Protein backbone atom coordinates (compact mmCIF):
# COMPACT_ATOMS: atom_id res chain seq x y z
CA UNK A 1 0.00 0.00 0.00
CA UNK A 2 2.83 2.36 0.94
CA UNK A 3 4.24 1.79 -2.54
CA UNK A 4 1.04 2.83 -4.31
CA UNK A 5 0.60 5.88 -2.10
CA UNK A 6 4.20 6.79 -2.95
CA UNK A 7 3.52 6.41 -6.69
CA UNK A 8 0.41 8.61 -6.52
CA UNK A 9 2.20 11.17 -4.37
CA UNK A 10 4.96 11.33 -6.98
CA UNK A 11 2.34 12.04 -9.67
CA UNK A 12 0.76 14.66 -7.46
CA UNK A 13 4.10 16.41 -6.96
CA UNK A 14 4.79 16.44 -10.69
CA UNK A 15 1.37 17.16 -12.15
CA UNK A 16 -0.74 18.39 -9.21
CA UNK A 17 0.32 22.05 -9.57
CA UNK A 18 -1.04 22.20 -13.15
CA UNK A 19 -4.42 21.09 -11.87
CA UNK A 20 -4.73 23.28 -8.80
CA UNK A 21 -3.27 26.35 -10.46
CA UNK A 22 -5.68 26.10 -13.38
CA UNK A 23 -8.60 25.72 -10.97
CA UNK A 24 -7.24 28.59 -8.88
CA UNK A 25 -7.05 30.86 -11.93
CA UNK A 26 -10.65 30.05 -12.81
CA UNK A 27 -11.74 30.86 -9.25
CA UNK A 28 -9.86 34.15 -9.34
CA UNK A 29 -11.55 35.04 -12.65
CA UNK A 30 -14.94 34.17 -11.15
CA UNK A 31 -14.34 36.24 -8.01
CA UNK A 32 -13.04 39.20 -10.03
CA UNK A 33 -16.11 39.00 -12.28
CA UNK A 34 -18.39 39.10 -9.25
CA UNK A 35 -16.49 41.97 -7.68
CA UNK A 36 -16.70 43.90 -10.96
CA UNK A 37 -20.39 43.12 -11.24
CA UNK A 38 -21.03 44.42 -7.72
CA UNK A 39 -18.79 47.43 -8.22
CA UNK A 40 -20.57 48.48 -11.40
CA UNK A 41 -24.04 47.21 -10.64
CA UNK A 42 -25.48 50.75 -10.57
CA UNK A 43 -24.44 51.16 -14.17
CA UNK A 44 -25.87 47.87 -15.38
CA UNK A 45 -27.95 48.68 -18.36
CA UNK A 46 -30.72 46.13 -18.34
CA UNK A 47 -33.19 46.54 -21.14
CA UNK A 48 -36.46 44.89 -20.29
CA UNK A 49 -39.54 44.34 -22.38
CA UNK A 50 -42.91 45.39 -21.04
CA UNK A 51 -43.73 41.76 -20.14
CA UNK A 52 -40.44 41.31 -18.35
CA UNK A 53 -40.93 44.51 -16.39
CA UNK A 54 -44.39 43.32 -15.36
CA UNK A 55 -43.02 39.90 -14.41
CA UNK A 56 -40.25 41.53 -12.43
CA UNK A 57 -42.67 43.73 -10.52
CA UNK A 58 -44.82 40.72 -9.63
CA UNK A 59 -41.83 38.76 -8.36
CA UNK A 60 -40.37 41.51 -6.26
CA UNK A 61 -41.18 42.14 -2.71
CA UNK A 62 -43.15 45.23 -1.77
CA UNK A 63 -40.12 46.98 -0.32
CA UNK A 64 -38.15 46.33 -3.50
CA UNK A 65 -40.99 47.67 -5.67
CA UNK A 66 -41.04 50.87 -3.68
CA UNK A 67 -37.28 51.33 -3.36
CA UNK A 68 -34.27 51.51 -5.65
CA UNK A 69 -33.52 48.20 -7.31
CA UNK A 70 -30.03 47.52 -8.59
CA UNK A 71 -29.28 45.92 -11.94
CA UNK A 72 -27.96 42.76 -10.25
CA UNK A 73 -31.10 42.38 -8.19
CA UNK A 74 -33.20 42.75 -11.31
CA UNK A 75 -31.14 40.18 -13.16
CA UNK A 76 -31.31 37.71 -10.26
CA UNK A 77 -35.04 38.21 -9.90
CA UNK A 78 -35.55 37.71 -13.60
CA UNK A 79 -33.32 34.69 -13.90
CA UNK A 80 -34.41 32.81 -10.83
CA UNK A 81 -37.79 34.26 -10.02
CA UNK A 82 -37.22 32.86 -6.56
CA UNK A 83 -40.37 34.14 -4.95
CA UNK A 84 -42.55 33.21 -7.89
CA UNK A 85 -41.21 29.66 -8.28
CA UNK A 86 -42.29 26.50 -6.55
CA UNK A 87 -39.55 24.53 -4.79
CA UNK A 88 -39.42 22.05 -7.67
CA UNK A 89 -39.14 24.83 -10.25
CA UNK A 90 -36.47 26.58 -8.24
CA UNK A 91 -34.53 23.31 -7.91
CA UNK A 92 -34.56 22.88 -11.69
CA UNK A 93 -33.39 26.45 -12.22
CA UNK A 94 -30.68 26.20 -9.58
CA UNK A 95 -29.52 22.88 -10.95
CA UNK A 96 -29.08 24.51 -14.37
CA UNK A 97 -27.29 27.49 -12.82
CA UNK A 98 -24.93 25.23 -10.84
CA UNK A 99 -24.22 23.21 -13.99
CA UNK A 100 -23.37 26.37 -15.93
CA UNK A 101 -20.91 27.44 -13.24
CA UNK A 102 -19.25 23.99 -13.31
CA UNK A 103 -18.79 23.87 -17.10
CA UNK A 104 -15.62 25.95 -17.32
CA UNK A 105 -13.97 23.97 -14.52
CA UNK A 106 -14.70 20.56 -16.03
CA UNK A 107 -13.59 21.55 -19.53
CA UNK A 108 -10.42 23.28 -18.34
CA UNK A 109 -9.68 20.24 -16.19
CA UNK A 110 -10.08 18.04 -19.26
CA UNK A 111 -7.58 20.10 -21.24
CA UNK A 112 -5.08 20.07 -18.36
CA UNK A 113 -5.56 16.29 -18.07
CA UNK A 114 -4.66 15.79 -21.74
CA UNK A 115 -1.53 17.92 -21.32
CA UNK A 116 -0.58 16.01 -18.15
CA UNK A 117 -1.07 12.65 -19.87
CA UNK A 118 0.91 13.63 -22.93
CA UNK A 119 3.80 14.49 -20.60
CA UNK A 120 3.69 11.58 -18.16
CA UNK A 121 5.69 9.09 -20.20
CA UNK A 122 7.39 11.46 -22.62
CA UNK A 123 9.11 13.73 -20.11
CA UNK A 124 10.71 10.87 -18.20
CA UNK A 125 12.23 9.63 -21.47
CA UNK A 126 13.31 13.10 -22.47
CA UNK A 127 15.23 13.88 -19.26
CA UNK A 128 16.33 10.21 -18.85
CA UNK A 129 14.77 10.02 -15.37
CA UNK A 130 13.04 6.87 -16.62
CA UNK A 131 16.40 5.16 -15.97
CA UNK A 132 16.15 6.19 -12.34
CA UNK A 133 12.50 5.08 -12.01
CA UNK A 134 13.39 1.79 -13.62
CA UNK A 135 16.22 1.29 -11.14
CA UNK A 136 13.55 0.91 -8.46
CA UNK A 137 11.33 -2.12 -7.81
CA UNK A 138 8.26 -0.74 -9.57
CA UNK A 139 6.84 -2.63 -12.55
CA UNK A 140 5.96 -0.87 -15.78
CA UNK A 141 2.34 -1.87 -15.22
CA UNK A 142 2.34 -0.21 -11.79
CA UNK A 143 3.96 2.91 -13.23
CA UNK A 144 1.53 3.26 -16.13
CA UNK A 145 -1.53 2.50 -14.00
CA UNK A 146 -0.48 4.92 -11.25
CA UNK A 147 -0.25 7.68 -13.85
CA UNK A 148 -3.67 6.83 -15.24
CA UNK A 149 -5.28 6.48 -11.82
CA UNK A 150 -3.86 9.83 -10.78
CA UNK A 151 -5.21 11.78 -13.75
CA UNK A 152 -8.52 9.92 -14.00
CA UNK A 153 -9.45 9.49 -10.36
CA UNK A 154 -7.19 11.43 -7.99
CA UNK A 155 -6.73 14.80 -9.71
CA UNK A 156 -10.52 15.24 -10.14
CA UNK A 157 -10.69 15.87 -6.40
CA UNK A 158 -9.14 19.26 -7.24
CA UNK A 159 -11.79 20.13 -9.81
CA UNK A 160 -14.58 18.92 -7.53
CA UNK A 161 -13.25 21.20 -4.80
CA UNK A 162 -12.90 24.05 -7.32
CA UNK A 163 -16.46 23.64 -8.56
CA UNK A 164 -17.77 23.45 -4.99
CA UNK A 165 -15.98 26.67 -4.02
CA UNK A 166 -17.17 28.42 -7.20
CA UNK A 167 -20.77 27.34 -6.70
CA UNK A 168 -20.64 28.41 -3.06
CA UNK A 169 -19.25 31.83 -4.00
CA UNK A 170 -21.96 32.36 -6.60
CA UNK A 171 -24.61 31.22 -4.13
CA UNK A 172 -23.31 33.70 -1.57
CA UNK A 173 -23.45 36.45 -4.18
CA UNK A 174 -26.96 35.42 -5.22
CA UNK A 175 -28.05 35.37 -1.55
CA UNK A 176 -27.12 39.03 -1.32
CA UNK A 177 -29.08 40.03 -4.38
CA UNK A 178 -32.09 37.74 -4.06
CA UNK A 179 -35.39 38.96 -2.61
CA UNK A 180 -35.65 39.19 1.16
CA UNK A 181 -36.24 35.88 2.88
CA UNK A 182 -35.53 33.82 -0.24
CA UNK A 183 -31.83 33.06 0.38
CA UNK A 184 -32.60 29.94 2.41
CA UNK A 185 -34.78 28.55 -0.40
CA UNK A 186 -32.02 29.31 -2.84
CA UNK A 187 -29.46 27.30 -0.87
CA UNK A 188 -31.83 24.41 -0.34
CA UNK A 189 -32.72 24.33 -4.03
CA UNK A 190 -29.08 24.43 -5.07
CA UNK A 191 -28.39 21.04 -3.39
CA UNK A 192 -24.89 22.37 -2.88
CA UNK A 193 -23.92 19.71 -0.32
CA UNK A 194 -24.83 16.68 -2.40
CA UNK A 195 -23.24 17.99 -5.60
CA UNK A 196 -19.63 17.04 -4.71
CA UNK A 197 -20.72 13.46 -4.06
CA UNK A 198 -22.48 13.25 -7.40
CA UNK A 199 -19.41 14.78 -9.03
CA UNK A 200 -17.18 12.26 -7.27
CA UNK A 201 -19.24 9.36 -8.55
CA UNK A 202 -19.46 11.06 -11.93
CA UNK A 203 -15.67 11.18 -12.14
CA UNK A 204 -15.46 7.49 -11.26
CA UNK A 205 -17.54 6.87 -14.40
CA UNK A 206 -15.76 9.57 -16.33
CA UNK A 207 -12.42 7.83 -15.66
CA UNK A 208 -13.79 4.83 -17.57
CA UNK A 209 -15.56 6.88 -20.24
CA UNK A 210 -12.33 8.66 -21.24
CA UNK A 211 -10.21 5.49 -20.98
CA UNK A 212 -9.75 4.98 -24.77
CA UNK A 213 -8.81 8.62 -25.38
CA UNK A 214 -6.58 8.97 -22.32
CA UNK A 215 -4.90 5.60 -22.98
CA UNK A 216 -4.28 6.63 -26.60
CA UNK A 217 -2.60 9.84 -25.42
CA UNK A 218 -0.48 7.84 -22.94
CA UNK A 219 0.57 5.38 -25.64
CA UNK A 220 1.71 8.25 -27.83
CA UNK A 221 3.52 9.72 -24.83
CA UNK A 222 5.39 6.42 -24.42
CA UNK A 223 6.53 6.08 -28.02
CA UNK A 224 6.60 9.48 -29.76
CA UNK A 225 10.11 10.55 -30.78
CA UNK A 226 9.18 14.26 -30.56
CA UNK A 227 6.17 16.58 -30.12
CA UNK A 228 3.85 13.88 -28.72
CA UNK A 229 0.85 16.22 -28.68
CA UNK A 230 1.09 16.60 -32.43
CA UNK A 231 1.27 12.82 -32.91
CA UNK A 232 -1.67 12.27 -30.57
CA UNK A 233 -3.89 14.48 -32.70
CA UNK A 234 -2.33 13.95 -36.12
CA UNK A 235 -2.68 10.16 -36.27
CA UNK A 236 -6.48 10.06 -35.63
CA UNK A 237 -6.90 12.97 -38.02
CA UNK A 238 -4.99 11.20 -40.79
CA UNK A 239 -6.99 8.00 -40.19
CA UNK A 240 -10.19 10.03 -40.32
CA UNK A 241 -9.09 11.72 -43.51
CA UNK A 242 -8.51 8.35 -45.20
CA UNK A 243 -11.76 7.11 -43.75
CA UNK A 244 -13.70 10.02 -45.18
CA UNK A 245 -12.00 9.52 -48.55
CA UNK A 246 -12.94 5.84 -48.64
CA UNK A 247 -16.28 5.77 -46.84
CA UNK A 248 -17.42 9.37 -46.83
CA UNK A 249 -17.41 9.62 -43.05
CA UNK A 250 -14.84 10.07 -40.27
CA UNK A 251 -15.79 8.12 -37.20
CA UNK A 252 -12.39 7.40 -35.58
CA UNK A 253 -11.52 10.97 -34.64
CA UNK A 254 -15.11 11.71 -33.67
CA UNK A 255 -15.26 8.63 -31.50
CA UNK A 256 -12.00 9.54 -29.74
CA UNK A 257 -13.18 13.12 -29.32
CA UNK A 258 -16.50 12.01 -27.87
CA UNK A 259 -14.61 9.87 -25.37
CA UNK A 260 -12.53 12.89 -24.45
CA UNK A 261 -15.56 14.94 -23.46
CA UNK A 262 -16.68 15.01 -19.82
CA UNK A 263 -19.97 13.40 -20.82
CA UNK A 264 -20.29 11.18 -17.74
CA UNK A 265 -20.23 14.08 -15.28
CA UNK A 266 -23.56 15.07 -13.71
CA UNK A 267 -23.15 18.80 -14.35
CA UNK A 268 -22.02 18.38 -17.93
CA UNK A 269 -24.54 15.63 -18.68
CA UNK A 270 -27.28 17.83 -17.32
CA UNK A 271 -26.06 20.76 -19.37
CA UNK A 272 -25.89 18.75 -22.60
CA UNK A 273 -29.26 17.09 -22.04
CA UNK A 274 -31.06 20.21 -20.83
CA UNK A 275 -31.79 18.84 -17.40
CA UNK A 276 -33.74 15.80 -18.55
CA UNK A 277 -33.71 12.67 -16.39
CA UNK A 278 -33.16 14.02 -12.90
CA UNK A 279 -30.11 14.09 -10.61
CA UNK A 280 -28.93 10.59 -11.55
CA UNK A 281 -29.39 10.97 -15.31
CA UNK A 282 -25.61 10.75 -15.85
CA UNK A 283 -25.72 7.08 -14.83
CA UNK A 284 -27.36 6.44 -18.20
CA UNK A 285 -23.87 6.31 -19.64
CA UNK A 286 -23.52 2.85 -18.09
CA UNK A 287 -26.29 1.58 -20.35
CA UNK A 288 -24.47 2.63 -23.50
CA UNK A 289 -22.72 -0.15 -25.39
CA UNK A 290 -20.25 2.47 -26.57
CA UNK A 291 -19.16 3.00 -22.96
CA UNK A 292 -18.12 -0.63 -22.54
CA UNK A 293 -16.55 -0.86 -26.01
CA UNK A 294 -14.49 2.18 -25.03
CA UNK A 295 -13.41 0.51 -21.81
CA UNK A 296 -12.25 -2.58 -23.72
CA UNK A 297 -10.33 -0.56 -26.30
CA UNK A 298 -8.86 1.60 -23.53
CA UNK A 299 -7.61 -1.44 -21.62
CA UNK A 300 -5.97 -2.69 -24.82
CA UNK A 301 -4.26 0.65 -25.40
CA UNK A 302 -3.07 0.74 -21.78
CA UNK A 303 -1.58 -2.74 -22.23
CA UNK A 304 0.29 -1.49 -25.31
CA UNK A 305 1.51 1.49 -23.26
CA UNK A 306 2.91 -0.86 -20.61
CA UNK A 307 4.72 -2.85 -23.32
CA UNK A 308 6.09 0.36 -24.83
CA UNK A 309 7.42 1.52 -21.47
CA UNK A 310 8.93 -1.89 -20.81
CA UNK A 311 10.84 -1.66 -24.07
CA UNK A 312 12.01 1.85 -23.14
CA UNK A 313 12.13 3.85 -26.32
CA UNK A 314 14.87 6.40 -25.69
CA UNK A 315 14.69 9.88 -27.18
Amino acid at each position, binding site marked *: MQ*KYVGLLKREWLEHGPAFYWSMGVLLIILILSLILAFAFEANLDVELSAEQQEELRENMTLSQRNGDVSGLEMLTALALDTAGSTDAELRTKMSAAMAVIAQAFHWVFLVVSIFALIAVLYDERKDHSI*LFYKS*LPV*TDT*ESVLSKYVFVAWVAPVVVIAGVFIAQTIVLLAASITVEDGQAGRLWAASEIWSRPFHALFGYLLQGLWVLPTYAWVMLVSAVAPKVPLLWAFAIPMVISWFESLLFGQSSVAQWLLSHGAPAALPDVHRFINDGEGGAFAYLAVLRQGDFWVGVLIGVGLLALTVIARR*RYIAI
Partner: protein
Amino acid sequence: MIVAANNLQKRFGDTAALDGFTMSVPAGRVVGLIGPNGSGKTTALKSILGLATLDGGELQVMGKDPLRQRAALMQDVVFIADTGILPKWMRVGDLLDYVDAVQPGFNRAAAVERLAKTEIRVTKRVRTLSKGMHVQLHLAIVLATEAKLLVLDEPTLGLDILYRQQFYDAILNDYYEQDRSILVTTHEVREIEHILTDVVFIHKGRTLLSAPMEDLAQRYTKLVTPDEVSLPTPPISTKRGLSGYEYVVQDVPRNELAELGSVTTPNLAELFVAVVGE
Protein backbone atom coordinates in the same frame (compact mmCIF):
# COMPACT_ATOMS: atom_id res chain seq x y z
CA MET B 1 26.57 -16.36 -9.71
CA ILE B 2 25.28 -12.77 -9.62
CA VAL B 3 25.39 -12.18 -13.38
CA ALA B 4 25.58 -14.93 -15.97
CA ALA B 5 25.57 -13.67 -19.57
CA ASN B 6 26.18 -16.12 -22.37
CA ASN B 7 26.40 -15.37 -26.10
CA LEU B 8 24.31 -12.20 -25.94
CA GLN B 9 23.15 -10.83 -29.29
CA LYS B 10 21.72 -7.42 -30.02
CA ARG B 11 21.50 -5.57 -33.32
CA PHE B 12 20.51 -2.02 -34.15
CA GLY B 13 19.79 -2.20 -37.86
CA ASP B 14 22.98 -3.35 -39.57
CA THR B 15 25.12 -2.73 -36.50
CA ALA B 16 25.77 -5.48 -33.98
CA ALA B 17 25.87 -3.90 -30.53
CA LEU B 18 26.37 -7.29 -28.89
CA ASP B 19 27.79 -10.13 -30.93
CA GLY B 20 28.16 -13.17 -28.73
CA PHE B 21 29.07 -11.22 -25.61
CA THR B 22 29.73 -13.43 -22.62
CA MET B 23 30.62 -12.50 -19.05
CA SER B 24 29.94 -13.39 -15.46
CA VAL B 25 29.99 -11.59 -12.13
CA PRO B 26 30.54 -13.86 -9.13
CA ALA B 27 29.37 -12.81 -5.68
CA GLY B 28 31.69 -10.49 -3.80
CA ARG B 29 33.67 -9.37 -6.86
CA VAL B 30 34.32 -5.96 -8.39
CA VAL B 31 34.19 -6.43 -12.15
CA GLY B 32 35.31 -3.76 -14.61
CA LEU B 33 33.71 -3.82 -18.05
CA ILE B 34 36.21 -2.03 -20.24
CA GLY B 35 35.68 -0.99 -23.82
CA PRO B 36 35.86 2.00 -26.16
CA ASN B 37 32.85 4.07 -27.23
CA GLY B 38 30.40 2.00 -29.23
CA SER B 39 31.88 -1.27 -28.03
CA GLY B 40 28.55 -2.45 -26.62
CA LYS B 41 29.23 -2.01 -22.92
CA THR B 42 26.24 0.26 -22.27
CA THR B 43 23.98 -2.12 -24.21
CA ALA B 44 25.35 -4.97 -22.10
CA LEU B 45 24.69 -3.06 -18.89
CA LYS B 46 21.18 -2.09 -20.02
CA SER B 47 20.44 -5.74 -20.75
CA ILE B 48 21.67 -6.72 -17.32
CA LEU B 49 19.41 -4.06 -15.78
CA GLY B 50 16.37 -5.14 -17.80
CA LEU B 51 16.36 -1.90 -19.79
CA ALA B 52 17.01 -3.39 -23.21
CA THR B 53 15.69 -6.36 -25.13
CA LEU B 54 18.06 -8.94 -26.58
CA ASP B 55 17.95 -10.66 -29.95
CA GLY B 56 19.55 -13.80 -28.59
CA GLY B 57 21.65 -15.42 -25.88
CA GLU B 58 21.06 -16.30 -22.25
CA LEU B 59 21.11 -13.79 -19.44
CA GLN B 60 20.34 -14.25 -15.79
CA VAL B 61 20.91 -11.84 -12.94
CA MET B 62 20.62 -13.47 -9.53
CA GLY B 63 18.68 -16.25 -11.22
CA LYS B 64 16.14 -13.87 -12.75
CA ASP B 65 15.36 -12.75 -16.29
CA PRO B 66 16.11 -9.01 -16.06
CA LEU B 67 13.62 -7.98 -18.74
CA ARG B 68 10.67 -9.94 -17.40
CA GLN B 69 11.48 -9.70 -13.69
CA ARG B 70 13.06 -6.25 -13.56
CA ALA B 71 10.97 -4.92 -10.69
CA ALA B 72 11.71 -7.92 -8.47
CA LEU B 73 15.37 -7.76 -9.44
CA MET B 74 15.64 -4.09 -8.52
CA GLN B 75 15.09 -4.95 -4.88
CA ASP B 76 18.63 -6.33 -4.97
CA VAL B 77 20.25 -4.22 -7.68
CA VAL B 78 21.11 -0.52 -7.64
CA PHE B 79 22.74 1.51 -10.38
CA ILE B 80 24.17 4.88 -11.18
CA ALA B 81 24.26 5.90 -14.84
CA ASP B 82 26.60 8.23 -16.65
CA THR B 83 24.04 11.00 -17.04
CA GLY B 84 22.18 12.77 -14.29
CA ILE B 85 19.07 10.62 -14.23
CA LEU B 86 17.45 11.81 -11.02
CA PRO B 87 14.16 13.61 -11.71
CA LYS B 88 15.19 17.26 -11.84
CA TRP B 89 11.82 18.71 -10.91
CA MET B 90 11.77 16.94 -7.52
CA ARG B 91 12.97 18.29 -4.21
CA VAL B 92 15.61 16.17 -2.52
CA GLY B 93 13.29 15.39 0.41
CA ASP B 94 10.47 14.31 -1.91
CA LEU B 95 12.89 12.14 -3.83
CA LEU B 96 13.97 10.39 -0.62
CA ASP B 97 10.29 9.95 0.34
CA TYR B 98 9.56 8.40 -3.05
CA VAL B 99 12.45 5.95 -2.85
CA ASP B 100 11.47 5.15 0.73
CA ALA B 101 7.93 4.32 -0.41
CA VAL B 102 8.87 2.02 -3.29
CA GLN B 103 12.22 0.50 -2.32
CA PRO B 104 11.90 -1.87 0.67
CA GLY B 105 15.66 -2.01 1.18
CA PHE B 106 16.08 1.76 1.44
CA ASN B 107 17.09 3.36 4.75
CA ARG B 108 15.97 7.00 4.56
CA ALA B 109 17.69 7.99 7.81
CA ALA B 110 21.03 6.67 6.54
CA ALA B 111 20.66 8.68 3.33
CA VAL B 112 19.80 11.86 5.25
CA GLU B 113 22.76 11.28 7.55
CA ARG B 114 25.08 10.98 4.54
CA LEU B 115 23.60 14.07 2.89
CA ALA B 116 24.08 16.05 6.11
CA LYS B 117 27.83 15.76 5.52
CA THR B 118 27.43 17.48 2.13
CA GLU B 119 26.05 20.83 1.00
CA ILE B 120 22.89 19.18 -0.29
CA ARG B 121 19.77 20.23 1.59
CA VAL B 122 16.54 18.26 1.44
CA THR B 123 14.60 21.38 0.46
CA LYS B 124 16.63 21.89 -2.71
CA ARG B 125 15.34 20.89 -6.09
CA VAL B 126 17.50 18.38 -7.95
CA ARG B 127 17.82 20.75 -10.93
CA THR B 128 19.63 23.28 -8.72
CA LEU B 129 22.36 20.79 -7.80
CA SER B 130 25.73 20.78 -9.52
CA LYS B 131 26.87 17.68 -11.38
CA GLY B 132 28.99 16.67 -8.41
CA MET B 133 26.14 17.15 -5.94
CA HIS B 134 23.83 15.24 -8.25
CA VAL B 135 26.17 12.26 -8.09
CA GLN B 136 26.55 12.68 -4.31
CA LEU B 137 22.77 12.54 -3.94
CA HIS B 138 22.45 9.47 -6.12
CA LEU B 139 25.31 7.88 -4.23
CA ALA B 140 23.59 8.62 -0.91
CA ILE B 141 20.45 6.85 -2.16
CA VAL B 142 22.40 3.88 -3.48
CA LEU B 143 24.55 3.47 -0.38
CA ALA B 144 21.47 3.61 1.85
CA THR B 145 19.90 0.72 -0.08
CA GLU B 146 20.46 -2.91 0.81
CA ALA B 147 21.51 -4.43 -2.52
CA LYS B 148 23.62 -7.34 -3.72
CA LEU B 149 24.74 -5.79 -7.01
CA LEU B 150 25.80 -2.23 -7.73
CA VAL B 151 26.03 -1.29 -11.41
CA LEU B 152 28.00 1.83 -12.29
CA ASP B 153 27.93 3.16 -15.86
CA GLU B 154 30.59 5.85 -16.23
CA PRO B 155 29.53 7.23 -12.85
CA THR B 156 32.26 9.86 -12.57
CA LEU B 157 31.98 11.25 -16.09
CA GLY B 158 32.32 15.04 -15.94
CA LEU B 159 33.29 15.11 -12.27
CA ASP B 160 36.44 16.81 -11.05
CA ILE B 161 39.23 14.73 -9.57
CA LEU B 162 38.19 15.45 -5.97
CA TYR B 163 34.66 14.14 -6.47
CA ARG B 164 35.96 11.14 -8.42
CA GLN B 165 38.25 10.13 -5.60
CA GLN B 166 35.52 10.63 -2.99
CA PHE B 167 33.12 8.62 -5.10
CA TYR B 168 35.23 5.49 -5.28
CA ASP B 169 36.32 5.84 -1.65
CA ALA B 170 32.67 5.88 -0.61
CA ILE B 171 31.88 2.87 -2.78
CA LEU B 172 34.73 0.86 -1.31
CA ASN B 173 34.28 1.94 2.30
CA ASP B 174 30.50 2.03 2.58
CA TYR B 175 29.14 -0.38 -0.01
CA TYR B 176 31.60 -3.11 -0.76
CA GLU B 177 31.31 -6.13 1.48
CA GLN B 178 32.04 -9.78 1.04
CA ASP B 179 28.71 -10.78 -0.46
CA ARG B 180 28.14 -7.64 -2.51
CA SER B 181 29.26 -7.26 -6.09
CA ILE B 182 30.04 -4.26 -8.26
CA LEU B 183 29.95 -4.05 -12.05
CA VAL B 184 31.54 -0.87 -13.34
CA THR B 185 32.29 0.69 -16.71
CA THR B 186 34.45 3.74 -17.17
CA HIS B 187 36.79 5.41 -19.60
CA GLU B 188 39.07 6.32 -16.72
CA VAL B 189 40.56 2.85 -16.43
CA ARG B 190 43.42 3.97 -14.19
CA GLU B 191 40.93 5.35 -11.70
CA ILE B 192 39.33 1.98 -10.99
CA GLU B 193 42.18 -0.38 -11.71
CA HIS B 194 43.15 -0.66 -8.07
CA ILE B 195 39.64 -1.59 -6.91
CA LEU B 196 38.87 -4.25 -9.52
CA THR B 197 39.01 -7.95 -8.75
CA ASP B 198 38.03 -8.97 -12.30
CA VAL B 199 38.11 -7.41 -15.73
CA VAL B 200 36.16 -7.95 -18.94
CA PHE B 201 37.28 -6.36 -22.21
CA ILE B 202 34.53 -5.75 -24.74
CA HIS B 203 35.06 -4.67 -28.32
CA LYS B 204 32.56 -4.63 -31.19
CA GLY B 205 30.09 -6.47 -28.99
CA ARG B 206 32.42 -9.38 -28.31
CA THR B 207 34.27 -10.43 -25.18
CA LEU B 208 37.97 -10.08 -25.84
CA LEU B 209 39.16 -10.95 -22.38
CA SER B 210 37.57 -12.04 -19.12
CA ALA B 211 39.81 -12.79 -16.19
CA PRO B 212 40.52 -12.13 -12.50
CA MET B 213 43.05 -9.34 -11.97
CA GLU B 214 45.52 -11.70 -10.30
CA ASP B 215 45.54 -13.87 -13.44
CA LEU B 216 46.44 -10.89 -15.60
CA ALA B 217 49.65 -10.34 -13.66
CA GLN B 218 50.59 -13.97 -14.18
CA ARG B 219 49.60 -14.22 -17.85
CA TYR B 220 50.63 -10.88 -19.29
CA THR B 221 54.02 -9.24 -19.21
CA LYS B 222 55.25 -5.93 -20.48
CA LEU B 223 58.78 -6.07 -21.80
CA VAL B 224 60.79 -2.97 -22.68
CA THR B 225 63.99 -3.35 -24.67
CA PRO B 226 66.32 -0.72 -26.15
CA ASP B 227 66.44 -2.60 -29.44
CA GLU B 228 64.09 -4.85 -31.33
CA VAL B 229 64.38 -8.45 -30.09
CA SER B 230 63.15 -11.87 -31.13
CA LEU B 231 60.69 -13.37 -28.60
CA PRO B 232 59.99 -17.05 -27.85
CA THR B 233 56.32 -16.53 -28.86
CA PRO B 234 54.90 -13.65 -30.91
CA PRO B 235 53.86 -10.70 -28.68
CA ILE B 236 50.26 -9.59 -28.72
CA SER B 237 51.43 -6.04 -29.27
CA THR B 238 54.58 -4.20 -30.20
CA LYS B 239 55.07 -0.46 -29.83
CA ARG B 240 58.08 1.75 -30.36
CA GLY B 241 58.30 4.29 -27.55
CA LEU B 242 60.77 6.83 -26.19
CA SER B 243 62.51 4.22 -24.07
CA GLY B 244 62.76 1.68 -26.85
CA TYR B 245 60.55 -1.22 -27.91
CA GLU B 246 57.56 -2.12 -25.74
CA TYR B 247 56.10 -5.59 -26.05
CA VAL B 248 53.06 -7.09 -24.34
CA VAL B 249 53.53 -10.81 -24.14
CA GLN B 250 51.07 -13.52 -23.13
CA ASP B 251 51.79 -16.76 -21.26
CA VAL B 252 55.60 -16.52 -21.33
CA PRO B 253 57.49 -17.05 -18.02
CA ARG B 254 58.90 -13.75 -16.83
CA ASN B 255 62.36 -15.15 -16.11
CA GLU B 256 62.71 -15.93 -19.82
CA LEU B 257 61.83 -12.34 -20.72
CA ALA B 258 63.88 -10.72 -17.95
CA GLU B 259 67.05 -11.62 -19.81
CA LEU B 260 65.91 -9.47 -22.76
CA GLY B 261 64.99 -6.23 -20.96
CA SER B 262 62.96 -4.69 -18.16
CA VAL B 263 59.87 -6.66 -17.23
CA THR B 264 56.70 -5.25 -15.61
CA THR B 265 53.00 -6.01 -15.47
CA PRO B 266 51.08 -3.96 -18.05
CA ASN B 267 48.42 -1.69 -16.64
CA LEU B 268 44.84 -2.17 -17.81
CA ALA B 269 45.00 0.59 -20.40
CA GLU B 270 48.16 -0.89 -21.95
CA LEU B 271 46.69 -4.37 -21.85
CA PHE B 272 43.43 -3.19 -23.39
CA VAL B 273 45.21 -1.46 -26.26
CA ALA B 274 47.34 -4.55 -26.76
CA VAL B 275 44.37 -6.94 -26.77
CA VAL B 276 42.17 -4.76 -28.98
CA GLY B 277 45.09 -4.16 -31.34
CA GLU B 278 45.30 -7.92 -31.71
